[in-house]
């Protein structure tokens, strides 16, 4: 599976830089960032949803495997959210003239970074594995409820400089054919890459747990 993902991502990269045209109303080549920045944000959202799901599963089953899976999802979600923030900030410098503009989307992703970083801090503060798993799972459930507001609602309620999402406010997809194809391909490629990374780190956590090193 990994070879397929790598080849797919290479094809997406070629399409992003060569095959796809640039979009109208953007400065120069800056619109091509959509093929990289948006998948980062999508994967972060997916990872945070996954952490909420595994936390709920842990609370239902009390199986520590779900606790470890939730932890891995948060860790990787933070990585992708950080990459989305940094790349978005570079785009902001080109399009809006400053790295940071206090745009609702910038603020909401920063809030998410803080919320999920606090999850890891909370985990590191508790030594007993069962107590840690309980507290972390409850915290992740609260974060799971708050997360959709930050990702989907707040940026749509307030005026934002951020370009339209794939499905815009009018309920339409207004991307040009090649741009849309490359964008969807890139989303699929990065989702595949996340699946690889996630499974790899979950296996790693299981081995660490078996060796008595998991935290």
């Amino acid at each position, binding site marked *: 599976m990994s070879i397929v993902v790598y080849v797919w991502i290479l094809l997406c990269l070629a399409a992003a830089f060569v095959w796809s045209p640039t979009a109208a109303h953007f400065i120069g080549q800056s619109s091509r960032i959509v093929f990289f*920045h948006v998948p980062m944000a999508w994967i972060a959202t997916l990872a945070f949803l996954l952490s909420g799901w595994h936390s709920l599963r842990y609370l239902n089953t009390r199986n520590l495997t779900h606790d470890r899976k939730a932890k891995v999802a948060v860790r990787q979600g933070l990585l992708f959210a950080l*990459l989305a923030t940094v790349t978005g900030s570079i785009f902001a410098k080109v399009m809006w003239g400053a790295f940071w503009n206090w745009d609702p989307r910038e603020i909401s992703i920063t809030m998410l970074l803080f919320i999920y970083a606090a999850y890891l801090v909370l985990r590191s503060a508790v030594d007993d594995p069962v107590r840690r798993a309980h507290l972390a799972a409850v915290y992740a459930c609260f974060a799971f409820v708050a997360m959709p507001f930050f990702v989907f609602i707040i940026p749509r309620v307030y005026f934002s400089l951020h370009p339209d999402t794939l499905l815009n406010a009018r309920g339409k997809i207004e991307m040009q054919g090649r741009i849309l194809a490359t964008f969807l391909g890139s989303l699929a490629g990065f989702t595949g890459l996340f699946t690889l990374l996630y499974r790899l780190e979950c296996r790693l956590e299981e081995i660490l747990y078996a*060796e008595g090193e998991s935290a």
Partner: protein
Amino acid sequence: MSDLFALGLVNAIIWTGLFLYFIYLNGKMRRLEKR
């Protein structure tokens, strides 16, 4: 900042970040599996 430089920078940051993370995970996994 020019648009091309920004695009290059965006890609450099993403791929460096992911590559380092992947190397870190693979290396740790290999060490553990050898034990």
